[in-house]
């Protein structure tokens, strides 16, 4: 009985393995002039395998959930045994056929090692693959592409549209102007912030674009952060309005808002201590990952949003979500700080270029 099962498992594994290598070979190998893999092919192969393994792992998870139910009916195995056998199917070590390329063999063995260690933690596994890639193909410390456009909004003094990958944020700055008497401060200017998200921005449709507890909280956070960036005492009795609209949210929304706001403020010519930049970082096992997407955020992952001025040590905003082990705090903060500095470099270039384009032609 046992040996038959083993043979069956071996057969299953080989089918999986053969389809995998065939697929990767068809998809990735392009250059037949050398016996070794080129650099491009190598990375393609490893990403291919990552993807395949990820799918496999998802199946396993579902299987682990569903199998006990089915098996219980038959009365053959207990749930725990079913899960064990399920994972055993996966991690059966088999020596690969000799004809396959060596690169794949190495990857394979590596996979085998990590699976045995991290089998218990499916959730963490799905965020960073064995090869150190994330779901969207980024490395842990890599930020998404940042695209910006300043000065879109003709009604506002300063405005900015900013993209972090698929997160798209629009920010407008009105003022400083003589605002409502109720908000007026005699010694400095008042800052009013409003954060809202379009109803279609998230995965699920929202009913209200603003006014819920979370948006109000983020509005307050932004308000406080920028009160310490703007030199408010140079505009007594005035008011500055900052409006952020998340058009499409794909993680790190707060960080994107901070970045968009600093650019919009720079566009409006408001005196500041510097350009603020922000990043959201999380931690998987002990490895920090930066600039999270919404798929990475939905997991129960501890994450920190940090904003600094000019990429230096001056912190203007910290927000932690979920629980974080105290030992990990410094790791996350260091990663976040480094990312803020990276983001700052991007923002500074954009702001400077825009400023040049803004200067009136023949103004002198």
């Amino acid at each position: 009985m046992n040996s038959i099962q083993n043979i069956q498992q071996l057969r299953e594994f080989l089918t999986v393995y053969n389809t995998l290598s065939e697929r990767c070979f068809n998809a990735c190998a392009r250059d037949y002039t050398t016996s070794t893999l080129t650099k491009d092919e190598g990375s393609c192969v490893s990403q291919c395998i990552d993807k395949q393994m990820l799918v496999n792992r998802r199946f396993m998870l579902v299987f682990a959930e569903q199998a006990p139910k089915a098996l219980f009916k038959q009365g053959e195995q207990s749930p725990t045994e079913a899960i064990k056998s399920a994972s055993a199917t996966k991690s059966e070590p088999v020596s690969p056929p000799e004809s396959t390329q060596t690169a794949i063999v190495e990857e394979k063995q590596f996979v085998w090692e990590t699976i045995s260690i991290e089998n218990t933690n499916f959730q963490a596994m799905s965020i960073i693959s064995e090869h150190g890639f994330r779901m969207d193909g980024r490395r842990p410390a890599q930020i998404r592409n940042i695209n910006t456009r300043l000065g879109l909004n003709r009604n506002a003094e300063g405005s900015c549209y900013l993209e972090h990958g698929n997160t798209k944020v629009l920010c407008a700055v009105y003022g400083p102007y003589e605002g409502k008497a109720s908000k007026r401060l005699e010694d400095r200017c008042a800052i009013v912030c409003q954060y809202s998200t379009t109803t279609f921005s998230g995965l699920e449709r929202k009913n209200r674009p603003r006014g819920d507890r979370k948006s109000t909280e983020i509005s307050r956070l932004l308000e406080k952060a920028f009160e310490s960036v703007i030199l408010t005492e140079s505009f007594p009795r005035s008011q500055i309005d900052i409006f952020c609209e998340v058009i499409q949210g794909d993680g790190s929304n707060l960080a994107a808002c901070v970045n968009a706001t600093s650019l919009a403020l720079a566009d409006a010519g408001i005196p500041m201590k510097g350009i603020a930049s922000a990043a959201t970082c999380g931690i998987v096992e002990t490895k920090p990952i930066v600039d999270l997407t919404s798929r990475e955020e939905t997991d129960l992952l501890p994450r920190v949003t940090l904003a600094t001025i000019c990429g230096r040590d001056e912190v203007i905003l910290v927000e932690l979500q979920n629980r974080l082990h105290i030992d990990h705090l410094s790791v996350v903060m260091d990663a976040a700080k480094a990312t803020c500095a990276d983001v700052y470099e991007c923002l500074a270039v954009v702001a400077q270029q825009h400023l040049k384009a803004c200067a009136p032609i023949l103004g002198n």
Partner: protein
Amino acid sequence: MEVHISDDEKLFLISGVEQDIRNDGRTCADFRTIVLERGVLSGTNGSCRVQLGQTTDVLAGIKLELESFDPAAEKEAKQPMSFHVDFSANASSQFAGKGGDQYGEEISAAFQVAFSRSLDILPNLSKTLLAEGYRWKINVDLSVLQWAGSVPDACSLAIIGALSDLEIPEVEVAPDDGGKVSIVLKRPRTGGNMRDEEVPVAMWKLDVQSCPMLLTVSKIGSANLVDCSPEEECCIRSQLLIGVAKNLNDDDYDITCIKQHGGGLLEMESIQDMTELASKTAGGLYQAIEKRLKTEEKRKPGHSFLL
């Protein structure tokens, strides 16, 4: 940006439209240039951005939802679209907080009325009804990102754009135990060793060539105007929101709703004139939008659209 203008400026503007010269060089029946772009948001089932004269800027996003309803409770089939217009504070500080809610609700309600008979108007909309008690709900949400007058007109163009961009999955409905039904996404059969999950789900699109649109026609002085700027909106004596839909049978236009916005007195004859202007305008817009939808270049999904 609250717009105040003085009596003398109003006088100048009103005497201008009566001479058929508006402050930006248009005639009374002219629209500002319209920019329309579809497929701008990868997180939605359909999306569209419309700009009027480079300032009024509206973004529409559609999210599909599988909705169960009680067929016995509805006397006649309800149309599956619901509209929601939101004024972003980005457009103007007067919309901060609840500032834009009232106007937004008014426009949403007007769209709801203009589209109330859309099951009869749009040829293949009834396909959204999947089985007894189940249908696709089409949530059309509009966000006004920049404001310079004529929001309803921009919204209706954005709605048409987004509906034409909308892809609805094909499903197979099979009866299930206990009077229920099971709804499964349909995937075309392909050869080769593609696994089922990798085959893209078959999609279908709405036919929007007769989609209703809501136009504003304003009475300023003795003239009727379309597509008003904020300054012109200050001088409006009376404004009508007119829903127009193309009649595919006789190639003429049907009025689906008329609603007065704001106050003001109107004579019966003026209403006649204004609806005539609306259907004439709709004719031009239908042609223009059809042309644009045909010629719009395909972009890769998720491209950055404001750059």
